[in-house]
């Protein structure tokens, strides 16, 4: 019954809208459409197109069908890189988002005084470029004069070799966590601020503890933000490039040119000069990332219900 009553005015509104169109909206959107076309859509299709060709020693490029794509799907270097960023995602993202959520809930608990100070201080690392953060932490990790070396020396123990193959992913995960924890915290905090107070009041009257309220009322209320940050972190993890590319200078034995899929495509295009194959690999990496994004979104939608 409610559906029937709701649809009638909706229909009326729709026909009314059709009568009155603001054509002026198109010029307002035109600059965006142009930069979006040239910045995103066209390069994407150009990558697809490039993947169908191969550069010959003599006679320019020739059409090779799906050869590049098939080669990429069987490329162990690409899949090793993929496995690595997948592992990295599991190391880095859950911990960072949990810490950010915890910090936001603590700031929102009204038990902490002068919250503006920790809030801005925790956010500051976001303003540090990833490359500079990687350089800085690279120095800090160092055994000679880095903080790690000094602390270990003071304690009389051997400093962990952060540049070894076992700890490298953790070293990178720590850099990314340091950069983005405060940013995610701020997103959670701003969505916690807009939850109506009444929701807690009734829970408090029922005798729920603050921890219980945080878990059963606050977190479900901000699940939209949690999903958004999760998706950003997923995309960021699979695009990993800056940190390993900088640390490569400091740890050339651990980080090779195909450490992550992105470093692999970069080196294919600019060191091996094989732009066609690089385009095919980057497109496949992009498609797998988008599939993963879609899966996470689908799981998130189920959570919504």
């Amino acid at each position: 019954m409610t559906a029937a009553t709701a649809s009638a005015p909706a229909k009326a509104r729709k026909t009314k809208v059709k009568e009155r169109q603001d054509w002026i909206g198109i010029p307002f959107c035109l600059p965006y459409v142009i930069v979006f076309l040239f910045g995103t859509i066209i390069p994407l299709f150009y990558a697809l197109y490039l993947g169908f060709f191969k550069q010959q020693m003599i006679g320019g490029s020739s059409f090779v069908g799906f050869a590049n794509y098939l080669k990429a799907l069987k490329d162990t270097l690409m899949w090793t890189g993929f496995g690595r960023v997948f592992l990295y995602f599991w190391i880095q993202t859950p911990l960072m988002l949990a810490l950010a959520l915890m910090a936001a809930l603590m700031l929102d608990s009204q038990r902490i005084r002068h919250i503006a100070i920790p809030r801005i201080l925790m956010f500051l690392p976001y303003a540090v470029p990833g490359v500079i953060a990687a350089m800085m932490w690279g120095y800090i990790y160092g055994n000679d004069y880095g903080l790690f070396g000094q602390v270990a020396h003071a304690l009389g123990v051997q400093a962990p070799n952060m540049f070894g193959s076992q700890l490298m992913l953790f070293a990178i995960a720590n850099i990314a966590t340091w950069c983005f924890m405060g940013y995610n915290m701020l997103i959670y905090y701003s969505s916690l601020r807009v939850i109506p107070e009444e929701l807690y009041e009734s829970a408090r009257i029922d005798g729920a503890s603050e921890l219980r309220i945080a878990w059963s009322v606050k977190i479900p209320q901000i699940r939209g933000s949690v999903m958004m940050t999760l998706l950003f972190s997923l995309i960021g993890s699979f695009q990993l490039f800056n940190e390993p590319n900088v640390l490569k200078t400091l740890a050339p034995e651990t980080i090779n040119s195909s450490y992550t899929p992105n470093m692999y495509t970069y080196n294919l295009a600019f060191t091996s000069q094989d732009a066609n194959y690089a385009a095919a690999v980057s497109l496949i990496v992009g498609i797998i990332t988008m599939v993963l994004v879609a899966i996470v979104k689908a799981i998130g939608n189920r959570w919504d219900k």
Partner: protein
Amino acid sequence: MSAATVSPRKASREEKLAKQDWKNRQRNMRRAEKAAQRLKLTGRQRVMSWLLHIIMAVMVIYCLVPLLWLVFSSTKTNSGLYNSPGLWFADQNVFFQNIHDTFTFKDGVYPRWLLNTILYAVAAGLGSTLIATFAGYAVATMRFPGRNWLLWITLAFMSIPGTVITVPLFLMYSQAGLVSTPWAVILPQLSNPFGLYLMIIYAQTSIPISLLEAAKLDGASQWTIFWKIGFPLLSPGFVTVLLFALVGVWNNYFLPLIMLQDTKDYPLTVGLNVWLKMGSDTSVKELPNNLILTGSLIAIVPLIICFLFLQKYWQSGLAAGSVKQ
């Protein structure tokens, strides 16, 4: 005439005093309330409260220590970096010497990089934010064909990894002869789908359509309405998107790394990494670690200042963005 200028000053002084008095009273009241609240806390709650403060302090320290380390490092000579505690000064404080050396090292290439970074960030950041504001305003307040299309395509392509398109972008730009020019860094970054998404949400929540309708009835053109009514209402959202766009461009490494070939065109992120890579060059005796670190510090200060001073705007912008998800 002098009397005239003195008296308002006096009045304003008195006003200030009164204001201060009021403020003090308010603060005392708040303190008293808080003290009362604290008394009401049970023992267990008090322990919890302590625990919260300690955890928070640890997190803040984690975020701050590397920055403090960077500040201390910028006051040291290259050998001082090795022989002094990381979180304190060395015997010799050479902060100003380091700044001077950073700016003059390698024929003064650092100030070039700083200017390039500012140019790219302002051009691409301001440009992309303005473009997203126009489109976001139109999508949120007007009905025109293609409106929903724009929204859906933007949402769908927001999750495309930016680096997927960078290699084809490079090939496109090299055919157009734009590679190795500032345009190759600025133009691709004018497209900001996430900025558009935020602007749409912000415009939907902060612009009352009735206000626009009233202005239209008064005969104002859409262009005037946008600048006179829409834009002022959108300003916190504009500052938020602008700041995050500035950070995005300022911090970008991959795109300029690929697009630029001349050292003189580099932004700071790529340039500083060139200095770091000098370590693998055997002809270089000693890596200028102190200059790399001082250069890094100078590179992050402008953004930190922006965030601190514009706090009021971007925090309200973020809050409005989170109303609707």
